């Protein structure tokens, strides 16, 4: 149960008897990082938070999925994606589409519109669209919407990545492609107001599969679902990194030109890990919509995508668990600062983007690692 499986040399661990309390603490922190995170998420935080705070915390938690995905794709795969918001947005919007149709069919007033066909969501009628678009229709069913949230972004990410990497478009060029797509995504959502709700997003989503998502109980239930999904994602990420595939990824990151001559097709591997990261983001997006009750273009454009990269960088882009802390810390700091010092947040995030790669290239997880090594050396 040790985080940072690649960067912690076993040989530097002195025998238990000779360890100072400080070293023992950092070693435990590393070894049981997932257990500690699980205790924190499942026990400590719900115990000290009321339902309002827990709801707020759940919002930060949905962005941790993106940060964890970035550890895989950026930290290990070497693919810096500046467009995780795309997949977060897809997950979020597909969830919102399902919830919106559910809300609409429950609303007797909405049945008036729709020209005898299925009822049409309110924002569509405001935009004089009186027939439900064909691509909206299947999202009426949970059995379609839920698998779609998982499958569509993953598939899209794989196709996008594989097409680029097969043509050997990589590195900074691929980052720019993802950046451009994130921008296109938010522009399209804002532009197609009649189909997407435009700048307002899709709002008024009170229920999911018949259950209220706004009650106090729902806040707790959704929080626990989020936390458990996150832990599953982290364990899955660790499994990938510890497998031979994880080593292939590191090899690709360091020497992509060489791995082909070991008989591997790097485009497939990079496509795979990019798709996994997209899957994580989409799950985060869907949980986001369930918990905050709306989907908005403000969570799928360039700015949120870059913020996600900063979450991963602050937490440590080589540590799945570190990235989770990074996302929570920076997310909380963002709410606090943007409420209390309006406008300051953008400067701070710019500063973080410069400061962290320069002085903390491995983020918070790197600090723990450094402490362990320093204390180990002092013995």
């Amino acid at each position, binding site marked *: 149960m040790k985080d940072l499986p690649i960067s912690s040399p076993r040989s530097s661990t002195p025998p238990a008897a000779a360890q100072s309390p400080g070293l023992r603490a950092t070693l435990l922190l590393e070894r049981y990082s997932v257990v500690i995170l699980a205790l924190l998420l499942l026990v400590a935080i719900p115990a000290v938070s009321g339902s309002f705070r827990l709801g707020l915390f759940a919002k930060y938690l949905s962005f941790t999925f993106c940060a964890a995905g970035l550890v895989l794709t950026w930290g290990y795969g070497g693919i810096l994606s500046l467009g995780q918001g795309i997949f977060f947005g897809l997950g979020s919007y597909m969830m919102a589409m399902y919830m919106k149709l559910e809300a609409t069919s429950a609303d007797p007033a909405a049945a008036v519109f729709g020209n005898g066909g299925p009822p049409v969501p309110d924002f569509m009628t405001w935009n004089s669209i009186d027939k439900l678009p064909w691509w909206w229709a299947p999202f009426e069913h949970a059995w379609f919407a839920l698998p779609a949230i998982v499958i569509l972004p993953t598939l899209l990410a794989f196709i996008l990545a594989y097409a680029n990497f097969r043509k050997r478009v990589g590195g900074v060029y691929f980052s720019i492609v993802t950046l451009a797509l994130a921008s296109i995504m938010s522009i399209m959502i804002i532009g197609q107001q009649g189909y997407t709700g435009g700048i307002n997003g899709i709002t008024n989503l009170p229920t999911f599969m018949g259950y209220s998502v706004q009650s106090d109980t729902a806040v707790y239930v959704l929080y626990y679902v989020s936390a458990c999904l996150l832990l599953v994602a982290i364990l899955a990420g660790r499994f990938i990194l510890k*497998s*031979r595939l994880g080593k*292939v990824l590191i090899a690709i990151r360091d020497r992509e030109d060489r*791995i082909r*001559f*070991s*008989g591997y097709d790097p485009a497939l*591997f990079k496509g795979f890990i990019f798709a996994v990261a997209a899957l994580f983001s989409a799950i985060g997006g869907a949980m986001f919509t369930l918990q905050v009750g709306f989907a908005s273009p403000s969570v799928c454009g360039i700015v949120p995508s870059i913020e996600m990269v900063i979450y991963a960088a602050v937490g440590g882009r080589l540590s799945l668990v570190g990235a989770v802390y990074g996302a929570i810390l920076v997310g909380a700091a963002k709410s606090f600062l943007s409420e209390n010092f309006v406008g300051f947040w953008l400067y701070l995030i710019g500063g973080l983007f410069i400061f962290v790669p320069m002085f903390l290239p491995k983020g918070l997880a790197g600090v723990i690692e450094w402490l362990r090594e320093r204390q180990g050396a002092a013995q």
Partner: protein
Amino acid sequence: MTQMILSVENLTVSFDGFKAVDDLNFYVEENELHVVIGPNGAGKTTLLDMICGKTKPSYGTIAFKGLNLERMLEYQITRAGVGRKFQNPLVYEDLTVAENLELSYPKKRDVIGCLFFHRDETVRDEIDRIAHMIFLADQLDRKAAQLSHGQKQWLEIGMLLMQDPELLLLDEPVAGMSAKEREQTGALLREIAKGRSVVVIEHDMEFVKSVAHKVTVLHQGKKLAEGTMDQVQNDPRVIEVYLGH
């Protein structure tokens, strides 16, 4: 007649009009250790690059066991049984010696296979066996980045052995090595060459003499001479190219 494992015919590649390899015919027999020599810019490395798929030829064919390599991608060529060692040792620096060897194990190189790959007894034994051969048995848990230049060369040779190719392409395997390392590498190469075909590019004539079955001399992208080391050394055209100017 002995079976040809590799037949390169009419091979030409031009970079912006400059023909690095020009209408070259080149054959390698099974179990042959074939050395390619020639002055700088003769097209030696380009020839190996084309065989392993790194560079696509402008014209000509490369036949290997009935496959047309010139139409295949690098990883497909590797899987077909061609192994390449580069001039500067290219190893995966962030992985340990054992992991470098494990990655080169020639099975389950697709995504799903890798995800559920298990380093079982066979693989572990193979890693140990090869680590002994390349003098790195006591370095298995070290990161490749911490190895010396010569050790990296050995590791890369080891990775190729793990791959177990039928045709091995070596680009200056003793470059940058001390006299002692050179001797060990020579012995290693003779060991490797058993049961497979090897193409080696080398400048060190003493080394060539000690390992080569057959020597091809390239000059300005064309074949200048071919034969045993003695024949080649006494060929007036070869003497001209090497000493004439």
